[in-house]
């Protein structure tokens, strides 16, 4: 059983140049910020280290931070350019009973994150979902397709804050 600070120190010792930061600002959870291109390595370490043993990925969530510059389109809808998309990893150890949250942020224009498919198999569908709804590309994912939306959906990524729904899909009117 370790608290987030101890885990952060352990990680800092192991990967002195990669781990970015520990965010203690949020009142409820401490979050370790990680480089999106190193998440596999860190995941493997977290999973296999004897003192950590994070064998279970509870949830992987994509988030649109909506921190870019907001502009208005000609029809009055929001457009966001720049800023970041993030992925949160909530880890839990079924053996040692401790929890930790990791966060990676990536550029909105070219969102790329390493896949943790080979570390926690459960991330398969979670990553597909984040790709489907946010357009985050998980490198080295074996089967990155849409999962919830139709495979031929062309109108973009619905959970982005500036998403615009199409008028029609296959001849069916979509808005109310």
């Amino acid at each position, binding site marked *: 059983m370790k608290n987030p600070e101890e885990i952060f120190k352990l990680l800092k010792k192991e990967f002195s140049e990669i781990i970015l930061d520990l965010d203690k600002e*949020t*009142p*409820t*959870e401490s*979050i370790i910020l990680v480089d999106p291109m190193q998440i596999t390595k860190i995941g493997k370490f977290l999973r296999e280290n004897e003192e950590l043993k994070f*064998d*279970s*990925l*509870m*949830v992987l*969530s*994509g*988030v*649109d931070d909506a921190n870019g510059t907001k502009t208005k389109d000609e029809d009055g809808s929001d457009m966001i350019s720049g800023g970041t998309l993030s992925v*949160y990893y*909530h880890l839990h150890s*079924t053996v040692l*009973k401790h929890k930790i*949250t990791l966060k990676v942020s990536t550029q909105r224009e070219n969102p790329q994150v390493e896949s943790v498919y080979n570390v*926690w*198999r*459960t991330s*398969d*569908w979670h990553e597909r979902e984040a790709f489907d*709804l946010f357009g985050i590309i998980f490198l080295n994912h074996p089967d990155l397709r*849409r*999962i*919830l*939306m*139709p495979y031929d959906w062309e109108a973009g990524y*619905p*959970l982005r804050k500036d998403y615009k729904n199409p008028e029609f899909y296959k001849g069916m009117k979509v808005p109310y």
Partner: protein
Amino acid sequence: MALKTETMVLNMGPQHPSTHGVLRLELEIEGELILSVKPHIGYLHRCFEKHAEAMTYPQVIPYTDRLDYLAAMGNNFGYVIAVEKLLGIQIPERVEYIRVIMAELQRIASHLVAIATNGADIGALTPFLYLFRDREYILTLFEMTCGARMLYNYMWIGGLSHDIHPDFVRKTKEFINHFRPTVTELNNLLTFNKIFIERTANVGILPLDTAINFGASGPVLRGSGLPFDVRREDPYSIYNRFDFEIPTGKGLVGTVGDCWDRYYVRVLEMEQSVRIIEQAIDNIPEGDVQSAIPKRIKPPKGTVYARVENPRGELGYFIISDGNINPFRVKVRAPSFVNLEVMGELCKGHLVADVIAILGSLDIVLGEIDR
């Protein structure tokens, strides 16, 4: 000359009576033997997460009902716990007790449907009729409390929508007295039925390390032998006050982690839920169930991940607040979504008919898989 053979692709669903809704399974088969299974989901994608971003915090509660519609109370429970953590408010004792009773009643009702459909899918229609009779009993209790049969919107942030009916305690005790013998009846009717055992024992064996790596939870994980229950691991509400056991799969008629084990864990869990209700029902303290409901719900900036043990497993809500009256992001960790991922592993090398038994034992609800 070697005979040239081809594998066949068989589509199961989205309209199929045994896929528990609108799941589509793409089976690659060679004769009757399954080579691979690819689940296709999303036929019930109702955009919960988009709705949650557009609604205020209390307005999200009715949408959480519709995630896992067989266990709406549990969904409410998880969401309100997450928001209460974010707000940092204390809940009156009376509310906590009523919430636990409701959640456990819901667990029984949900497992009844799971067991009934599991049986009905592989040909045992009679238990279905018996178990739905008992489920109606629980639904009457809920209806008496909040007026709805299935989707309750009962637990509010900081309180409850209604206090319990004056008759509720008496009726619940009546139900418990009625329900105890039905479990025995069920065991005679289905659990130890020769045909049922033949269909489910040694079918779809899920080894424990695979289960953990796939993130499985609830009866699927416990069926593989690990006594992991969020109520015990990470106690929320007042679960640490009650005495209950965590049943696990023992391989009583087959191998640990087979379909029968997952099924039997549910039967045993219903008995444990009854135990919890019995301990709670006499100790409900007096009080006002709406006294702690905040006037204006506007949590501070922050993130929270709260999880509860829903009948199908670990239900988690990940909420990001940006200090506004509506959530910035709500992500649901739906137990069925994760549990369904193991489907491909479980079905390999089995027959087509076993797919139904395996799917039934996973007990999925498409509403929370697709959200």
